[in-house]
């Protein structure tokens, strides 16, 4: 008697002469059979969510730090030096930024690896999903598709950015960053990265809340409506903030293009004696 593999769910069934299914194994077998099921799927799922959450929170904070340029050049300068430990250790250690970048990079890679388990494996699965998505025309299903693609894009774009930050941690500052954005021609990348990262993060956060049942309202549909609002809000806010910030860098970069490469010195340090010293 051949075992039928009907989508994997018929381990216990075989075909009899009629081609119909008959059970062979006693199905009332004791439940907890010795090789206990691995705990890793649970842990990996939690790690995937935790890493995503961490990255998303980081990205939010990061956007605030980066947008400090909107306040003033000095503000951004201060933030940059802050991360280099200048205010606890007496002088800036850019290696500290490299350290932070390494951690982020590690989480990033970890998250990408965990999340990639969910990518369609092979062309057949890819086709199956696309066909399904196109016929169903369903919001949350399409959002997931967006997440796959933005995640995929992040994989390349964010890596470049992180590599930059890892290798040139000292070159973070109003002029340095603006030069990188404009003279270094990074702005197209940043523009795409911005959209990809923000969309990915907000959809990710939304999904996280659904997935674990956080922030529930009286009915599932109501909680979803609420979460969807929150998601739109987060996307809109951070993309706007990012665009304005990027514009500021571009502006500054263009103005500073001729002197590209020059390091920024905060006004409170050089104002008295560096004026006019070029």
């Amino acid at each position, binding site marked *: 008697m051949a075992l039928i593999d009907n989508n994997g769910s*018929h381990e216990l069934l075989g075909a009899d002469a009629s081609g119909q299914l008959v059970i062979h194994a006693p199905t009332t077998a004791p439940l907890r059979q010795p090789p206990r099921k691995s705990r890793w*799927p*649970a842990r*990996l799922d939690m790690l995937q969510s935790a890493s995503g959450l961490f990255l998303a929170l980081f990205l939010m904070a990061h956007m605030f730090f980066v947008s400090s340029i909107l306040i003033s050049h000095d503000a951004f300068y201060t933030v940059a030096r802050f991360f280099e430990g200048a205010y606890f250790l007496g002088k800036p250690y850019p290696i500290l930024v490299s350290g932070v970048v390494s951690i982020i990079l590690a989480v990033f890679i970890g998250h990408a690896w965990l999340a990639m388990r969910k990518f369609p494996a092979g062309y057949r699965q890819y086709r199956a999903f696309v*066909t399904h998505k196109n*016929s169903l025309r369903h919001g949350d299903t399409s959002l997931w598709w967006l997440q796959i693609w933005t995640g995929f894009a992040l994989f390349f774009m964010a890596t470049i950015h992180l590599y930059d930050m890892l290798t040139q941690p000292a070159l973070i500052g109003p002029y340095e960053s603006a030069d990188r954005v404009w003279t270094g021609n990074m702005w197209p990348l940043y523009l795409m990265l911005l959209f990809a990262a923000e969309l990915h993060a907000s959809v990710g956060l939304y999904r996280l809340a659904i*997935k674990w049942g956080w922030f529930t309202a009286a009915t*599932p549909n109501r909680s979803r409506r609420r979460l969807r609002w929150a998601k739109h809000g987060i996307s809109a806010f951070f993309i706007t903030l990012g665009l304005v910030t990027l514009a500021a860098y571009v502006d500054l970069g263009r103005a500073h293009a001729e002197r590209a490469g020059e390091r920024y010195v905060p006004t409170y340090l050089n104002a008295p004696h560096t004026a006019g010293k070029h």
Partner: protein
Amino acid sequence: MISILRRKNDTQPTRRLCIQVLRHNPADAASVPHLQAFEIAEAEGMTLFIALNEIRATQDPSLQFDFVCRAGICGSCAMLIDGRPGLACRTLTRDLGTTITLAPLPFFELIGDLSVNTGKWMRGTSERLQTWIHSSAQTDLDALEAPMEPELAEAIYELDRCIECGCCIAGCGTAQMREKFVGAVGLNKIARFRLDPRDDRSNDDFYELIGDDDGVFGCMSLLGCHDVCPKQLPLQTQIAYLRRKMAVIGLA
């Protein structure tokens, strides 16, 4: 004091409906999947059950489809209606356009035209997930039954209402990609038995059944299941709940 009787459409002319059916008979080696269009006149209160039967009686007697209760309670007639899974018997044509496309539920074994073998898959899932009360207690049928809180009984029924129609599987992108995924129907059943105090199984036992990427951790929260379930089961909350419970096992 008769309240508004029914929506009156008498003034509107009857529509001609074009019903396109994705046809294929796997028993016939020469058959290739193709769309076939049928034209019929719409009638008042016409459901897809009525329409398809009319087509079979008057136009093509070989058309295959499954209806049993024709009242939306048995789960036989799930199909893709304009691309979305739903119960054909309780879909009124007046809620659809003049061109209606019908296709069999994907994922399940095709029997012919609109008929798929959901029953076989559901039985397999039942066996795999052991969806029955596991109890070592002997019930004395002459003694008073064990009491149960009324709200609890209602909460169990709430999850027991699944009719195994397969819409949630057809509406789930994960299931389309990964054939071993138990789907919302399976997870909901586990949630149902978990809630039932008559079932002795612990969370550890349930972890053995759904604690992997073919089970609850495989669900990517696409929520297609929740949105297409004709019985409006709270699949979204139940899956999230199970995920939390099973994750805790993973930490232990």
